[in-house]
């Protein structure tokens, strides 16, 4: 502690001079007498030299980086639209080495204890028979998995990864509020926070000797590799996620990529012959270790919870037969029961003959008569929580209840007391959060992580700090007024100067066989390819129309424009088909139609919806997309590129937007072409693009070129633009625009990368690279479809297609285009059936009911 008058005191007019932490709570930065805590002196001086503005800029920079990296937390657990950007404060939480060391030791003791405890509960149950833990703790608790009792786990290791939710009380001591032992989340966000903050504050990061996170993950990976029952040299580890609807899907895919594991969902795995396999395009691939992010009860619909649709039927039996290792072991969830906190000190003495070093929040379990009496007398000072199923309902704050409500709550508790715990509230410490150009004291939570390593536990030096504006709103999940901080553990000496990123990429060690791609992922990549191509085609189409609109429109040009814009919709569905507008109205209507097609959320097949689908599929396969590609996809957002409703009214701005979109889409395609390995993932992405591109060309030709039209030349020009083939045409035919050469260029020409013929050739090439029986002499059904389409194109007489009937309709062309489209749709269906068909969801057999009587 420093005395006033030294340099540690906060100077007037400085960044911290208006920072006023509330009374009664411990502040992480400033002591009660107004000086900096030791670990903050150097850092605070550095911040001071940045100034409020500099800090504001860092803050903006951090936010932009997070947005571009697409770091999200899915609040309402629905696909797109509800992902909240991850909020990160630029000021880390600083912890001194000496304090950290003793905290880390205490956490390690706690995790070791929890592992002993769960080993006992699923084994001999000495804690229950000796009376340390009441039998009712097990039996009233749905989290105790009966089918997993006496299932031996390798090395008696239940907990491979642990997260503890900590808070620092007013006395400056850390306490545990909750233990997370099933699929603990947050470690991935900690890494992401670290990457962003270490780039935002690079100098301080190095000067303050901040401990690195990467070695922790290397240790976790080594542990998981050591678990495999068989295949010890090269075990396959997968990360089992609840899927894109889960709140932390971002983190699931992030961790999978970071650790080099295949990201899977329950439906990607299957149990055959008692072993677990991954369903890939190339067939079933055995799985040795599952790092799970799903809850115990959801893991196996056969033996655990029948209603689960995200588990793997037969998994418990595979674990029982020691064919697969699940980390954390099935059953570990029982350790999350808040009721356990009331018994931990006694359990620690019983199992380890030592005192618990890291205390929990004071907890009373109403299942014990004396605890219930205490709760009845002190309800107004306590928080009531479910004793077992932690997340099932919100805590009740005793001091918020009136007399009548208190009585009602107590009556409910007395009915089944074993289902409730009461906890004493912890006055969380505060730390400064950048808000505009000032610092506000927010309440702090610290999530620490430990992983099993070489017979013991190893703690992540750092962690994830959660901050909240209001102490009471400190909920379990991210919501408004909530954010996060990086956590820096300051070392006394310079830390090993490995770049975090270098270490991170060293942690990634991908060993995928060429056909090792989950069918579900291939499906999504295929559709991502289609959506990207579709988006590009729409943008070109709109841009071509817009260019014609912003130049002077001649009377004849208006008819052409009308046709061009009608061609955005299905034939017969455009409002311009029937109605005759006067010229001025028509121009307004047409430009409104363009805006509508671009921005309206409800326009079926419109650009907004196409982008939504694009983001949806991209989100599902984001662990398969490079970080740069992902950044591009995040920028493909109308609300980011052109948020102003006013600007959306201006054709000039819209035109600019379209150019930006086109650049981003081209950049995405460029990255896919240049940076994706030519594995099956790339093939399916590219097949999606090829099929979509061919279909788009056929569609636009069908809608614009199949009738005689007085402005044919101009229409041909527009179609060439949309198909991005104007230059090739001009180069080849100079300026004479005629239907037959245009059709030849767009349909038949196999050297034009935009032509249908070129797409078919590319598809034929892809078919040869798909997994299949190479000894089979016959062509596969999909090869036959491609060949049929190719023959049709190659044999066609382009001149003949151009002739029109008495009504001005080019009937041959219409039929030709329809047949080609039909072939492509057929190809898409065949591919889906052969490779991408999701095996139907599993379901329960009907249960036989006993009905005897006499």
């Amino acid at each position: 502690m420093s005395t006033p008058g030294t340099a540690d005191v906060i100077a007037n007019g400085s960044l911290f001079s208006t920072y006023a932490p509330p009374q009664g709570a411990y502040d992480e930065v400033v002591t009660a007498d107004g000086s900096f805590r030791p670990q903050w002196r150097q850092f605070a001086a550095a911040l001071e030299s940045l100034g409020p503005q500099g800090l504001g800029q860092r803050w903006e920079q951090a936010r932009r980086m997070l947005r571009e990296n697409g770091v999200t937390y899915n609040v309402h657990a629905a696909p797109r639209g509800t992902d909240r950007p991850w909020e990160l404060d630029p000021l880390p939480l600083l912890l001194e080495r000496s304090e950290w060391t003793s905290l880390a030791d205490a956490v390690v003791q706690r995790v070791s204890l929890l592992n002993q405890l769960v080993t006992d509960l699923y084994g001999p149950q000495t804690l229950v028979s000796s009376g340390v833990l009441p039998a009712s703790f097990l039996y009233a608790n749905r989290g105790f998995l009966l089918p997993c009792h006496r299932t031996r786990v390798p090395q008696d290791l239940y907990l491979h990864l642990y997260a503890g939710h900590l808070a620092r009380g007013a006395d400056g001591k850390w306490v545990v509020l909750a233990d997370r032992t099933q699929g603990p989340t947050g470690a991935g966000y900690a890494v992401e926070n670290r990457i962003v903050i270490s780039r935002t504050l690079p100098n301080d990061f190095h000067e303050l000797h901040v401990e690195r996170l990467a070695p922790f993950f290397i240790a976790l990976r080594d542990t998981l590799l050591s678990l495999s029952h068989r295949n010890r040299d090269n075990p396959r580890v997968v990360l089992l996620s609840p899927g894109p609807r889960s709140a932390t899907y971002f983190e699931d895919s992030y961790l999978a990529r970071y650790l080099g594991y295949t990201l899977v969902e329950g439906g990607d795995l299957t149990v055959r012959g008692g072993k677990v396999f991954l369903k890939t395009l190339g067939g079933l691939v055995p799985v040795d270790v599952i790092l799970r992010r799903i809850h115990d009860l959801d893991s196996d619909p056969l033996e655990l919870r029948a209603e689960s649709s995200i588990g793997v039927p037969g998994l418990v039996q595979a674990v029982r037969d020691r064919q697969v290792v699940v980390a954390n072991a099935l059953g570990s969830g029982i350790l999350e029961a808040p009721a356990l906190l009331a018994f931990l000190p006694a359990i620690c003495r019983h199992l380890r003959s030592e005192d618990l070093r890291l205390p929990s929040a004071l907890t009373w379990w109403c299942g014990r008569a004396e605890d219930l009496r205490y709760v009845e007398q002190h309800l107004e000072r306590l928080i009531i929580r479910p004793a077992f199923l932690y997340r099932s309902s919100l805590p009740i704050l005793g001091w918020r209840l009136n007399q009548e409500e208190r009585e009602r709550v107590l009556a409910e508790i007395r009915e089944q007391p074993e289902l409730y715990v009461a906890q004493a509230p912890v006055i969380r410490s505060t730390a400064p959060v950048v808000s505009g150009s000032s610092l506000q004291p927010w309440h702090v939570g610290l999530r620490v992580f430990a992983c099993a390593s070489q017979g013991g536990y190893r703690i992540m030096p750092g962690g994830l700090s959660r901050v909240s504006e209001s102490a009471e709103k400190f909920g379990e999940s991210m919501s408004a007024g909530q954010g996060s901080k990086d956590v820096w553990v300051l070392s006394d000496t310079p830390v090993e100067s490995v770049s975090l990123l270098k270490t991170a990429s060293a942690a990634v060690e991908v060993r995928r066989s060429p056909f090792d791609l989950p069918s579900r992922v291939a499906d999504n990549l295929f559709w991502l390819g289609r959506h990207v191509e579709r988006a590009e085609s729409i943008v070109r189409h709109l841009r071509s129309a817009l260019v014609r609109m912003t130049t002077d429109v001649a009377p004849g040009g208006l008819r052409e424009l009308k046709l061009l814009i009608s061609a955005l919709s299905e034939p017969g569905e455009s409002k311009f088909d029937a109605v005759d507008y006067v010229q001025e109205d028509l121009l307004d209507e047409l430009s409104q139609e363009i805006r509508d097609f671009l921005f309206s959320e409800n326009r079926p097949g419109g650009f907004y919806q196409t982008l939504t689908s694009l983001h949806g599929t991209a989100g599902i396969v984001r662990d398969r997309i490079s970080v740069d590609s992902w950044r591009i996809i995040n920028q493909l957002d109308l609300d980011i590129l052109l948020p102003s409703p006013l600007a959306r009214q201006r054709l000039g701005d819209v035109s600019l937007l379209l150019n930006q979109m086109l650049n981003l889409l081209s950049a995405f395609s460029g990255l896919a072409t240049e940076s994706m390995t030519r594995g099956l993932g790339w093939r399916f992405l590219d097949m999606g693009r090829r099929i979509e591109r061919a279909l788009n060309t056929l569609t636009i030709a069908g809608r614009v070129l199949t009738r005689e039209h007085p402005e044919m030349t101009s229409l041909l020009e527009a179609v060439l633009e949309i198909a991005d083939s104007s230059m090739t045409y001009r180069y080849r035919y100079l300026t004479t625009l005629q239907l037959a050469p245009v059709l030849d260029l767009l349909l038949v020409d196999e050297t034009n990368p935009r032509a249908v013929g070129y797409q078919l050739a590319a598809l034929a090439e892809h078919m040869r690279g798909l997994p299949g029986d190479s000894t089979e002499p016959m062509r596969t059904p999909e090869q036959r479809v491609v060949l049929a389409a190719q023959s049709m194109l190659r044999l066609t007489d382009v001149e003949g297609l151009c002739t029109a009937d008495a009504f001005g309709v080019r009937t041959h062309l219409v039929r030709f285009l329809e047949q080609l489209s039909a072939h492509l749709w057929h190809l898409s269906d065949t591919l889906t059936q052969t490779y991408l068909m999701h095996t139907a969801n599993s379901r329960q057999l009907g249960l036989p009911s006993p009905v005897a009587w006499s």
Partner: protein
Amino acid sequence: MKYLVQHTTTYTYSETVPLCHNQAHLTPRDHSWQRCLEHDLRVAPEPALLEEWSDYFGNRVHFFSLELPHQRLIVHSRSLVEVEEPAYPPAAATPGWEEARRAVQDPQQSDARIASQFAFDSPYIHRLETALSYARPSFPPGRPLLEAALDLTARIASDFRYDPVATCVNTPTEEVLAKRRGVCQDFAHLQITCLRSLGLAARYVSGYLLTDPPPGQPKLIGADASHAWLSVFCPSFGWLDLDPTNNQLAKARHVTLAWGRDYGDVCPVKGVLIGGGHHTLSVAVDVTPA
């Protein structure tokens, strides 16, 4: 008494099933008045895996999986069981029901501690206010446990109508209580709900009952069915088996398969499958003195 039990469960699917995983509780367990002399479980088509282990309650369980496309699944179990006439204490000699409640609510003895697991809610059974009110008249203060429990058994047998179409396996006890109809499983669940709501420990028993053909007619093969009843925990005397469907204590005509907290723990066959379209289920049980 020795019995030969044959139990065949057949699932027929409208569409092919490429994969299914199943669990069966079809092996009669041993207990103080029953021994399983022979047991044989056959699955058709041939399962890719068939394994046996003992569950948390000590029941024998089979796990099997079918991994080739099939449109029908047959599980056939054949058991030879020896059952003795169980000896029950005179009802009036059993301890007061409050003492039985105390024993499981604050267990001191290891048998009571183990029994206490059957005093809480389980997936199919939740303690209910309505069940408590229904049970109360049978449980005046100080009444011997077995006397009170038998009185409740008799009331259920007379108040409720046996009706195989009124309920299904998932019908909640509240509904059974309101409809006053159901099958043996419902009555067992109901009485367990009543006993647990009173604070007592009660477990679900799955098994068979030897039935007699109507007078003058030959016994039909497969005319029997699987049966369900319950046990209540009584200090000093252990578990006492009550059959509310037939208003009696379980006797040597009751063949025990397995016990658990409720039907879900010991259901004879369950499974998770892919595909299959609609399926029909048929069960044939035959219990004959051997």
